[in-house]
């Protein structure tokens, strides 16, 4: 596989009249990476994906997908896309829909006939394969949409809120699908504001707020990285306190409490050992976990107002 990243953009911008939907999108998503794109309602997530897929023309900026410019048609053979509100001709059956999409993707009949039943099975619609879409519920439509996005065994998949309208089983199915894609080396661009889901599935996330990417970070960094630890212990000598500095910074004693910032979660057992081995009595050692949700609130603000 070529060395070009899955997605590479610089300064992508979209204005609708006076409204700036996306101000400056510059990011890189590696091959095989599961990339979470997070942001509140109206932040510009869907607009960003539509620009990447050539559905809307950027006002400024450029980008490449799988090494090809955004306007390239043929590269779309290797891309899958689940739109935000998946809709299709309701007079088709699920199987017919997938057949047409297969043909649009330039797949052979043999490849279609092999893939379609497998995908229908995977999204749990095998028993509704020959039912017209107009009889489908919202979640069922979403499932066909997901199957449609995976037909061509893509190298890069865009999922815009894939779990919207899905029941808990469906959500788990989406998670499993994403894991499966990761195993196959497929890159995933996941638009979401369901943070739990992102926390479980993504390698890296970007936060977008009012059209600006405000932070990009690997999830491991975010979650297992810098942690504030609160320790409650009695009989801690100044030497013991001083010794704690080997695992972290900002060590501060406050009565029976000690607060400090450690660089990685892995230091926690060593800290506990150190305290006990120096003759102090340890009552509690609590890492203050930064959840993605806290981070989300911190990064995008928590006014709850759609901007």
């Amino acid at each position, binding site marked *: 596989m070529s060395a070009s990243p899955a997605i590479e953009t610089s300064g992508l911008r979209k204005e609708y009249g006076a409204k700036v939907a996306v101000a400056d999108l510059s990011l890189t998503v590696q091959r095989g990476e599961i990339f979470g794109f997070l942001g509140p309602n109206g932040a510009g997530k869907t607009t960003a994906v*539509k620009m990447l*897929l*050539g*559905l*809307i*023309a950027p006002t400024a900026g450029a980008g490449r997908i799988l090494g090809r410019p955004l306007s390239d*048609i*043929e*590269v*779309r*053979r290797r*891309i899958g*896309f689940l*739109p*935000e*509100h*998946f*809709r*299709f*001709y309701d*007079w*088709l059956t699920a199987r017919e829909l997938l057949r*047409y*999409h297969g*043909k*649009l*993707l*330039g797949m052979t009949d043999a490849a279609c006939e092999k893939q379609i039943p497998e995908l229908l099975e995977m999204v749990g619609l095998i028993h509704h394969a020959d039912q017209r879409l107009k009889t489908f519920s919202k979640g069922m439509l979403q499932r066909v*949409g997901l199957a*449609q996005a995976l037909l061509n065994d893509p190298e890069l998949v865009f999922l815009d809120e894939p779990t919207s309208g899905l029941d808990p089983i469906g959500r788990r199915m989406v998670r499993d699908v994403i894991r499966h894609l990761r195993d196959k080396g497929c890159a995933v661009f996941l638009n979401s504001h369901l943070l739990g889901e992102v926390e479980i599935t993504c390698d890296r996330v970007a936060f977008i707020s009012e059209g600006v990417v405000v932070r990009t970070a690997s999830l491991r960094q975010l979650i297992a990285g810098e942690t504030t630890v609160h320790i409650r212990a009695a009989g801690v000598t100044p030497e013991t306190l001083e010794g704690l500095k080997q695992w972290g910074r900002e060590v501060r004693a406050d009565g029976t409490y000690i607060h400090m910032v450690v660089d990685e979660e892995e230091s926690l057992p060593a800290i506990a050992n150190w305290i006990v081995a120096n003759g102090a009595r340890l009552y509690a050692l609590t890492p203050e976990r930064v959840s993605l949700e806290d981070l989300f609130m911190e990064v995008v603000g928590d006014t709850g107002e759609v901007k």
Partner: protein
Amino acid sequence: MSRIALIAQLTFHEARRRKIMWAAVLLGLAFLAIYALGLYFLRGEIITGMDQYPQGTLTAVNMLVMMALYAVNFLIIVMTVLTSVDTIAGEVASGAIHAIATKPIRRAEILLGKWLGFAVMLVLYATLMIGGVVLITRALTGYTPPNVLRGSLLMVLEGFIVLHLSLLGGTFLSTLANGVFVLGLFGVAFIGGWMEEFGSLMYNETVVNIGILSSLIMPSEAMWRWAAYLMQPPLLRTFNVSPFGSNAQPSLAMVAYTFAYLVAALAIAIRNFSRKDL
């Protein structure tokens, strides 16, 4: 299969699945059956009439055929508008276009595929209806209007004008607005055609020019008027002021203009759609 043909196939599939095709064919056949039945019962009078007052009878039979063809002409237009008015606009509104336009297919190919599908339907429907009227008339009375092939082609051309405008409107209007747009233009052309007709009857150049202007904006009615002119017996041409006939001279320049108009409308539709934010 080419991508254009695939989209055309989808368009056809839709017409079949949504029973548009069936309804059009069945009601078309009903139309032809009524026409045939009427003609069948008039047959005796027509045959005697042909012996006694050939000129008058011929005129009457021609009137009858032209009336039927006028209705067919109108049906072709309405069918074309109804089937195609929603095609791009509806898919943009529902979001169905997102799943198509992100596949390896050019926007131009999507539009041309739709065009192909509707064009084939238009030609099939026109063939059924015009062919039906002409063949029934011939079988029951032995009469065939003059220039029937050229006349029919002009009627089909009128259908294409409406189709192209409907595809064009779909690239920037909602479904309903598009229907209003196309039928509204048809109305403009219709009243303009009448003005031209009366103007020329009364030798009023200004009124004729108003008519010509409206034909340039929307050449649909002009196509029917020339078709009607061609398919009348020469005697009727000078006097017939009714929607079923015409005293307008067909002009090759106008047909050439119409072709240019068709190409331009489709080209603008493709350009609009290619640049449209979906």
